[in-house]
């Protein structure tokens, strides 16, 4: 037998071991614990180690939880739609125009992206508050105050989510647009396509995967938003993450919190599975 350059299976296993251990310790084990915890009972703020379906029965029979979960999915979908609609033109313009300013714009985007979300979110509260600088400037100019719905409403929550998650959308779309061979567009023009037609026939289908990947990323992150609903929503529009936090911390009902966590994780996993089926991830360019 010839000496193969491929490492032996044992070596591969050894190399993978640290990663496997790390994943197990910090992902698989906690997940299993969460699942186990959701089948326990609670009494006087104490977890009772009794296997039961009480928590799950409560979840499936309580309208309020599902209302919040539905609201969360709805808000996330809206956020995905807005991020794609705002992110695509920005990403497309970054690739095709502003060649001179591209680097500067990218750095600014990264700065905005890396600034702590708490800071940014509270910044908006301060700015948009009734006694904040926004109203001050408006009043100074002789204009009326901002309408009520600008802050502590669904609109402001959505605004905050889009504001925080837009960079994810822009960066994934930017990459997919940037990767398109410019000669393909030239070829389309050469074949007789107008600018719009070339965009529709070439650019759009080729960055479909980028758009979908960006949407998926934004959706998953949106499901977990807790800062925006809490801070910009003024507590009036709780979303799933905030509900889970309250269940654990305020109500001290760990089994229920665990069960709600699993519901949210399930929604996430199902979405990812559906999306990857839709995208045929890993199958390359074949349809």
């Amino acid at each position, binding site marked *: 037998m010839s000496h193969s350059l491929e490492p032996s299976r044992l070596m591969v296993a050894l190399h993978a071991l640290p990663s496997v251990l790390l994943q197990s310790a910090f992902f698989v084990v906690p997940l299993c614990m969460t699942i186990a915890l959701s089948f326990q009972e609670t009494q006087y703020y104490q977890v009772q180690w009794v296997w039961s379906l009480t928590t799950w029965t409560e979840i499936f029979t309580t309208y309020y939880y599902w209302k919040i979960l539905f609201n969360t999915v709805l808000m996330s979908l809206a956020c995905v739609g807005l991020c794609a609609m705002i992110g695509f033109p920005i990403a497309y313009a970054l690739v095709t125009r502003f060649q001179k300013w591209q680097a500067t714009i990218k750095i600014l985007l990264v700065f905005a992206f890396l600034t702590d979300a708490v800071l940014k979110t509270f910044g908006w509260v301060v700015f948009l508050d009734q006694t904040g600088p926004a109203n001050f400037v408006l009043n100074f100019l002789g204009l009326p105050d901002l309408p009520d719905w600008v802050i502590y409403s669904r609109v402001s929550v959505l605004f905050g989510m889009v504001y925080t998650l837009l960079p994810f959308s822009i960066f994934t779309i930017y990459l997919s647009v940037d990767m398109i061979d410019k000669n*393909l567009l030239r070829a389309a023009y050469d074949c*007789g396509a107008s600018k719009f037609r070339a965009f529709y026939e070439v650019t759009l289908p080729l960055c479909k995967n980028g758009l979908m990947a960006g949407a998926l990323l934004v959706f998953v992150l949106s499901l977990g938003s807790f800062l925006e609903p809490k801070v910009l929503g003024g507590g009036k529009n709780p979303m799933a993450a905030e509900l889970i936090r309250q269940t654990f911390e305020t109500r001290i009902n760990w089994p229920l919190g665990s069960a709600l966590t699993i519901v949210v994780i399930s929604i996430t996993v199902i979405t990812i599975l559906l999306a990857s089926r839709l995208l045929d991830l890993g199958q390359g*360019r074949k349809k």
Partner: protein
Amino acid sequence: MPKDICTIQGVIKNYGNFRALHGIDLHVQKGEFIALVGPSGSGKSTLLQIISGFEAPSEGRLLIDGVDMTDVAPADRPTSMVFQKLALFPHKTIAENIGFPLKLRKVPKAEIAKRTREMLDLMELKPEYLNRYPAQLSGGEQQRVALARSMISHPKLLLLDEPLSALDVKLKKVLQTELKRLHRSLGVTFIHVTHDLEEAMMLADHICVMQNGLLLQVGTPDDIYYRPTHRFVAEFIGETNLFPVKAGQNGSYEIEELPGARGVSSFGGEGVQSDTAYLMVRPEFLHLAAPDHDLDVTIDIVVSETFNHGSTTQVKAVTREGNHIITLEIQGHLDEAVDIGAHLTVGWHDTDTHLFARTADKMEFAA
């Protein structure tokens, strides 16, 4: 006289301070196969981009079939381009790729399908490829698909931007033959850009040799090979022997410096507008001196290297006096092995030589 399909008048292209094209004039006749040849940076691709409309000339004019193309977008020009990296649409099937130009022209679907099939047959591609994607085809097959897409809309001018440069030698030869066959059977005018003069000689009716944004010479492959007008052209294909000559009395030229040459005659340099010139002797026109050979000029050489080219043998040598490098190409393989260090006598017939002005070189660099 046949009509010009493409006329280029005084085309200059500047990129900032850099001048890529220094006033190009070229007439391309209908049905011709034209090759634009030159090293990278010679401006050949820029010229093609200007014809296709992807670049606008800084000065000068371009006419296609008698129509000024200044304000005509690439999409509306009767030209079609085969890109260097083919630029097939990876998300479209072969059928969709080939039929794309017709789809844009709102040709009925049945007609598109019919013409796509015709192109497929013409390119000798299998019908089952129609529903495959470009990535599933080999390099040569992709090449044929790219050609099919360019030809389906019946362009007046087919522009080829080094589409063969990335292929291996064997496939390249096959596709070169294919291109020539296509050109003959379709009667479309081809403008082919390449850095490979041998490829250009093989394919083209007329070759335009470019260097540093100048069109040095336009001519048939024979003109380019046997009657170059510039040292750059003479040396661009294969190796050659150039001897500096200067004008003597009554319009004839004499070799300036070639010690040991016997029977040096003078050469009539008709049309050479210069006092100094080069005398070119192609390696295959240098013969070994033999009693039955009536050579005009002979010289003694010492062999420094031999290369077996199969049907010919190339001999590199230096003259015994003066150490001038000489290259010979001898038909067949040599009966007696020519050893390195062997002393030979070689020579040429004056009728096999070609004279061209030497000053032209300086012009190129000043430009």
